[in-house]
């Protein structure tokens, strides 16, 4: 059952990801990206991380991507004609991308990757709840990164407002 769901969403994610790159209409590409995010969220659920799944949909598909779409619609860049100064880069990019893919597959196929480790097994998570586990970790072991993230976001927000706001304070 889990395996069927995995293959279903994994295939969907890969196809949609190809769509993001291949489709020439930026809005369609953005939609494919939304499908990628949602498929990934489904995979997270399979990995007993429903919190990450919900956050993925809410933040990436629901907030970040919708802002992308907003900007795309506002600028309405039209359909990419595939021409332009960077055309020669396309075959090059394909070659390098393929090389990277082959390399990764070879490495993953031959490496003895470490097994899952750490104290948070699926059974333990089911018992304490993954939201509770994440919450507890965020406020104990990962307190410092958590607080720094809040400062980082504050600074980014203040900075963006200063750079983008309309009226200039005299």
């Amino acid at each position: 059952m889990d395996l069927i769901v995995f293959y279903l969403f994994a295939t969907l994610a890969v196809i949609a990801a190809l769509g993001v790159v291949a489709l020439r209409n930026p809005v369609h590409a953005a939609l494919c990206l939304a499908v990628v995010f949602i498929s990934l969220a489904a995979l997270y659920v399979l990995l007993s991380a429903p919190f990450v799944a919900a956050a993925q949909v809410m933040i990436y598909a629901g907030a970040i991507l919708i802002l992308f779409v907003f900007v795309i619609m506002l600028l309405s860049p039209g359909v990419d004609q595939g021409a332009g100064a960077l055309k020669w880069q396309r075959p090059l990019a394909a070659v390098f991308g393929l090389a990277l893919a082959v390399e990764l597959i070879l490495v993953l196929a031959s490496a003895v990757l470490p097994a899952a480790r750490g104290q948070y097994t699926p059974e333990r998570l089911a018992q304490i709840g993954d939201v509770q586990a994440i919450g507890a970790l965020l406020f104990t072991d990962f307190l410092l990164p958590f607080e720094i993230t809040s400062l980082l976001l504050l600074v980014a927000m203040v900075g963006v407002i200063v750079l983008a706001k309309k009226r200039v304070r005299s």
Partner: protein
Amino acid sequence: MPDAQTLTLISPELLLSIFGLLILLVDVIWREKSQSALPWLAILGFALALAATLYIWGSNISLFAGMYMVDMFSLFFKVVASLAGILITLVSIDYLRQRTPYRGEFFAIFTFSILAMMLVASSASLLMIYLSIEFLSYTSYLLTGFLREDKKSNEAAIKYFLYGAVTSAVMLYGLSLLYGVTGSLNLTDIAAAFSATVDSTVRMIALVSTMLVLAGLGFKISLVPFHQWAPDAYEGAPTPVTAFLSVGPKAVGFAALLRVALTALPQWVLPAPPPAPVKEIPLVLAVVSIITMTLGNLIALRQTNVKRLLAYSSIAQAGYMLIGVVAVNLTGNSPFSGLNGILIYLFAYLFTNLGAFICVIAIENATGIVEIPEYAGLVKRAPLVAALFVIFFLSLAGIPPTVGFIGKFFVFGAALREGWLYLAAIGVINSVISVFYYFAVVRQAFFEAPKDATPIRLAPLVTLSLVVSAALVLAFAIYPQPLLNLAAWSMGMVK
């Protein structure tokens, strides 16, 4: 809730966070009335952070489940960061007054960028390294584009941001590979996981991910081929920010590089006893170093804008510093461990380059001049600036009696000790090349007739910071002992 000891050990960071927020708050509440007080608030914050750093001087402890190291290595960078903060704030006051109405936000963001420098220096986990480098990047992008009405500043910020976003994605990819193959975010645990395995593919992954991480850090340090942003960003950014960009991100980029290389990947980086061949990572770094210094110096020869000239010069300087990383060897009691060379070099470079930029700011503030041909006859118009230019350029080129010479001495010395003869030779040749363009500026300033002979009036704060940095450059050259001790102590982190 962290205990009192932890809070004391991160007090420099806490102080800067508090002062950054305080500046934002004061700016919002008192608006115009507070404008002239805000930079002084920032300086107070840096001074207190410096005092706090000195108070916990000598600590060697890891905090937050091994994520954060408070050791001499990081404290060294914290001292450097606070001093840079004070100097740059001093010269920003006059520069910003005519150029932007958002000075409160500027000083707040600047305080946070110094905070980010401190965080990078102490980070000992992949998560913290990535997060704090991103923090530093965001603040740098914002500061670069801070002059919103100035097209060049906008262009600079966009280029800087696009480059930064791509390289940081590449770096994140590398970090995730490291995490995937070792199952740990903690640098010491990663080293342990690597030494526990004999699988040859693990070695491959370690190499690949190191290269990817190098892309992100190389961007911060402005190594070739990740340097293209530097000239444009340096030229367009507000000049005090350029001064910051040329020292801050570069210094902590090296801090992160050294921390990752020496803590997480020692077996891939540190040389094995003689019969063993040279390892791949140092070899790659050596090649990058050669390309970086040569390219930086050759292109610098053709620049006419002094900010672009210093940009290429700082790319070249990154190449010299990288020699130290290539030649790191922590065995034995040699005074040339490579590591101390980089630290001394960084310290020297910091004040020298800051000084050179303060000279540029002094002139730009008074006259708006940034083109080298217009520097003609500077010695008649602003004798102090012209004289100090000579000192800073001597130091950048590595000619005694300046602190720059001591830095180069230890870095090249380490290369010779480790048998990187050709690397040291290319470094020396490049230093000779650099003299040409540094002294092209000096020639304009001293031997050409001025088109406009009106004396240039310097703002008192700028003069003060000029004199301070020049004094540091000369003082540490004449009496380098504290610097040598400092750098030697900082190596405690890997022993």
